[in-house]
C-alpha cells in the first residue's frame, strides 16, 4: 500500500471518525497516524472535538411530555387512507364496502380474541414489535445455539449487559423438569437484546428470553410507574409460534415455542415464573453504577460467595501464598460493578484492599485527563498497598482503582494490618511479597516505556497479562483495545492497527475484548526483535 501523506490524511480523517471509510483506507489512515505525531495529535483533537460537539448538540430533548403530546396528536388523526384501500373499496359500491367493513370488524374481533388476549392490564400490555422480535430471535437463534454435550453455562460476560443475566442459567435449570437446558447466551434480534435460554423437550425447541422492559416493549410506549404488581401471564400467536410472557418492573420474560397455547401456558408457569422471581430479587438491589454495594446482600450474594469460596479453595488456582492469612485479618467485603470506582484520586489512604473475585485496574491520570493503567490486579492480589507507607508518602490516593468486571474486594484497615503483624509475620510476608512483585512489575514497565517501541511494548504487556490471567485460571486476556492503549500509553487506533498486525503474524488471536496470545511465538518475537515499522 502506498504511504498516505498528511494532506490526504487530514482530508480522510473526519470520514474515518464517522466510520465511513473502507477497511483498507482505515488501515492507511491508521498507518499514517502511527508514523506521524502531528497527525496523531490532530486525530485526537478532532475526535475530542467530535465528542464535544456530540455532547453539546444532544442536550435538547423533546422530553416525555413532548412525546405524549405527539402521541396524542397521532391518536386524534384518522387512519391513513392509502391507494390500496381505495382500490379495494371504491366508494361507488357501498354494499360491498359495508360487507367488507363488517368482515374486517369480525376478523378484527376474532384476531383480537384469539391472537392477543393481552389487554387485561392495558398499561402493561406488550407491544407486537416485542412479540415479533422474540419470535424472530427464537427462529433465527435457538436451533443453531443448542449444544450437544456437557452442562450449559451462561458466559460470564452476560453480567456485563445486565447483572440480572449472569445467574439465569442456574435459576432456570433447577426448575425445568422434563426439559433439557441446551444453551444459554446473550443475543440480539431486531435491535433488541435478549438473554436467551434454549430448552428441548423431546423434539420441541423452546426459548426462554429475558429482555428490558422499555418503552418499545410495551404497547403504550411508556413504562408505567412501578406499582409492584405483575401484569400476569400474557399470550399471543405470532408467525405460527406461541409467545407467553410475564413481567417484572424492569424485565420481560418471554417463552417462545410452537406448542399449543394451553401447553405453552403451563410450561411458562413452570419455567418463567421462577425466573421472574429471580429478576425481582436482582432488581431490588440498587443498580446505580456509582453506588458501592453494602457488605453483603444476603438475598443474592450468599450463593455466589459460597461458590467462589469453593473455587478459591480449589487446587487449580494458585493464589498468592499470603491470601488466606490476609483474609483472616479483620476486614469488610464490598462488591463493585464493572466500571465503578473502588477508590479515587485524593481519597484518604487508610486501607489496603484484596481482590477476592474479579479484576481491578489501577490508573493514574495526567492533568489534562489522559489515563494510564499502571497495573491490573487479579484474584488474590493486594492493591492500594501504598496506604501502608503512611501519611508522609501517601496520605491521600495518588491513583485510582476501578473494577474491570463485577469484583468483590476485601478492605483491611491499615491500623488493623499493623496490629495484626505484631504476632503474625505471615501477613507481613504476604504483603511484602506482593510489594516486591509490584516493584518488579514497575521496573519492567519503566524499561519497556524507555527502550521498547509500541509493538514490543504491546507484545510485552500481552505476555505479562496472559501469564497473570493464566495464574487465576483464565484462558484469555479480557481487555478492550482502549484499555490496552491506556496500559501501554498509546491510542486506541494505534493499538487496533498493531493488534491486526500481530494477529496477521499469528502471535495472537482475538475477538472483541478477548485476546488469546500464542505465548511461544510472542516470546520468540520479543527475543528476535523483529520489529515492524521501527
Amino acid at each position: 500500500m502506498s504511504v498516505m501523506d498528511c494532506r490526504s490524511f487530514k482530508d480522510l480523517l473526519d470520514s474515518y471518525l464517522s466510520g465511513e471509510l473502507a477497511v483498507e483506507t482505515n488501515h492507511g489512515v491508521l498507518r499514517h497516524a502511527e508514523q506521524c505525531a502531528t497527525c496523531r495529535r490532530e486525530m485526537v483533537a478532532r475526535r475530542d472535538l467530535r465528542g464535544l460537539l456530540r455532547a453539546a448538540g444532544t442536550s435538547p430533548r423533546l422530553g416525555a411530555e413532548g412525546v405524549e403530546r405527539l402521541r396524542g396528536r397521532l391518536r386524534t388523526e384518522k387512519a391513513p387512507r392509502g391507494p390500496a384501500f381505495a382500490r379495494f373499496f371504491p366508494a361507488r359500491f357501498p354494499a360491498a364496502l359495508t360487507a367488507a367493513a363488517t368482515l374486517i370488524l369480525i376478523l378484527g374481533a376474532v384476531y383480537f380474541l384469539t391472537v392477543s388476549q393481552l389487554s387485561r392490564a392495558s398499561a402493561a400490555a406488550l407491544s407486537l414489535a416485542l412479540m415479533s422480535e422474540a419470535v424472530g430471535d427464537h427462529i433465527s437463534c435457538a436451533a443453531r445455539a443448542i449444544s450437544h454435550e456437557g452442562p450449559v453455562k451462561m458466559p460470564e460476560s452476560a453480567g456485563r449487559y445486565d447483572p440480572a443475566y449472569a445467574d439465569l442459567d442456574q435459576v432456570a435449570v433447577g426448575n425445568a423438569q422434563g426439559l433439557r437446558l441446551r444453551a444459554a447466551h446473550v443475543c440480539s434480534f431486531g435491535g433488541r437484546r435478549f438473554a436467551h435460554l434454549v430448552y428441548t423437550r423431546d423434539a420441541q425447541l423452546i426459548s426462554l428470553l429475558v429482555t428490558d422492559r422499555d418503552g418499545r416493549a410495551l404497547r403504550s410506549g411508556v413504562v408505567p410507574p412501578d406499582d409492584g404488581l405483575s401484569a400476569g401471564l400474557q399470550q399471543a400467536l405470532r408467525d405460527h409460534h406461541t409467545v407467553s410472557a410475564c413481567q417484572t418492573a424492569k424485565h420481560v420474560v418471554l417463552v417462545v415455542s410452537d406448542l399449543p397455547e394451553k401447553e405453552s401456558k403451563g410450561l411458562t408457569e413452570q419455567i418463567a415464573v421462577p425466573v421472574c422471581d429471580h429478576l425481582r430479587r436482582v432488581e431490588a438491589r440498587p443498580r446505580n453504577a456509582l453506588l458501592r454495594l453494602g457488605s453483603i446482600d444476603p438475598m443474592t450474594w450468599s450463593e455466589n460467595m459460597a461458590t467462589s469460596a469453593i473455587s478459591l479453595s480449589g487446587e487449580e488456582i494458585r493464589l498468592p501464598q499470603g491470601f488466606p492469612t490476609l483474609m483472616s485479618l479483620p476486614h469488610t467485603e464490598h462488591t463493585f460493578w464493572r466500571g465503578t470506582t473502588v477508590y479515587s484520586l485524593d481519597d484518604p489512604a487508610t486501607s489496603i484492599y484484596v481482590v477476592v473475585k474479579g479484576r481491578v485496574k489501577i490508573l493514574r491520570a495526567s492533568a489534562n485527563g489522559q489515563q494510564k493503567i499502571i497495573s491490573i490486579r487479579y484474584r488474590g492480589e493486594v492493591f492500594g498497598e501504598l496506604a501502608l507507607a503512611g501519611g508522609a508518602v501517601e496520605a491521600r490516593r495518588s491513583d485510582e482503582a476501578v473494577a474491570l468486571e463485577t469484583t468483590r474486594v476485601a478492605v483491611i484497615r491499615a491500623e488493623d494490618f499493623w496490629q495484626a503483624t505484631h504476632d503474625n509475620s505471615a501477613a507481613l510476608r504476604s504483603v511484602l511479597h506482593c510489594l516486591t512483585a509490584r516493584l518488579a512489575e514497575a521496573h519492567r514497565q519503566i524499561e519497556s516505556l524507555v527502550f521498547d517501541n509500541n509493538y514490543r511494548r504491546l507484545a510485552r504487556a500481552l505476555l505479562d497479562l496472559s501469564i497473570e490471567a493464566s495464574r487465576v485460571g483464565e484462558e484469555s486476556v479480557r481487555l478492550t483495545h482502549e484499555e490496552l492503549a491506556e496500559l501501554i500509553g498509546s491510542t486506541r487506533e494505534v493499538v487496533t492497527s498493531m493488534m491486526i498486525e500481530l494477529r496477521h503474524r499469528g502471535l495472537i488471536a482475538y475477538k472483541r475484548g478477548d485476546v488469546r496470545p500464542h505465548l511461544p511465538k510472542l516470546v520468540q518475537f520479543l527475543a528476535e526483535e523483529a520489529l515492524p515499522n521501527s
Partner: protein
Amino acid sequence: MSVDIQRVKGNGRPGAVRAVASEGSSVLTKDKDQRLEEFEAVALGYADQLFRVALRLVRDHGRAEDLVQETYLQAWRSFHRFELGTNLRAWLFRILFNVHYSERRQEHWQVASTEEAMAETIAYDPPTPQHVTEEEVLSALERVPREFQVPVVLADVEELSYKEIAEALRIPVGTVMSRLHRGRKMLRTELASYAHAAGYSTTAE
C-alpha cells in the same frame, strides 16, 4: 451553484420512489390501532433526534415541537407506503425537511450567500484547537452557514451515515461529503479564531 440545485432536484426523485416501494402489503389484515402502534413502535424512537434538528432549523422550542408533530403526522399518513426494513430514520428526516422547506419556501435554495465564505475557507485548513468548551463549539457551529451546518449536525451529532444524510436531504452522497468537508472545516476555522482570541496557541506544537 445552479448546477448543484439541478442535481438536487434531479436526483431527489429516485430516492423518493425507493421509500414508497411496496404499498400496503398488510393493510387489510391490521386495524388502525395496531398499525398506529406499529408505527409508534418503530418511529417514535427518533423523536428526540428530529426535535434537535428541528430546533436548529426554526430556533424556537414551540415551533420545533410543531414541526416534529407535523412530520410524524405526515409520516403516519403515508406509513402504508413505507416498507419496513428500509431506512426509516432517513425517511423521517426527509419528511422533516420537506415540511420545513414547504413552509418556508423562500429560504429553500439560499446557497449563493455562502460562496464567499467558502472561497475563504477552501485554501486554509487550521489545526483543531485543543481547549474549547461546549458553549464555544455551539456558537461556532451557529456561525456555520445553514447549508453546511445541517449536514455536520446530522453526521457528527445525530450520527447518521452519509447515505442516510443523502436520502434525508435529497442530495447525492458526493455532495454530502463535500458539504461535510467544508462544514467541518468552517467549524474548525471558527473555533480557531475563538481560541486565537482567547490567547491559546492553535498550532499543535
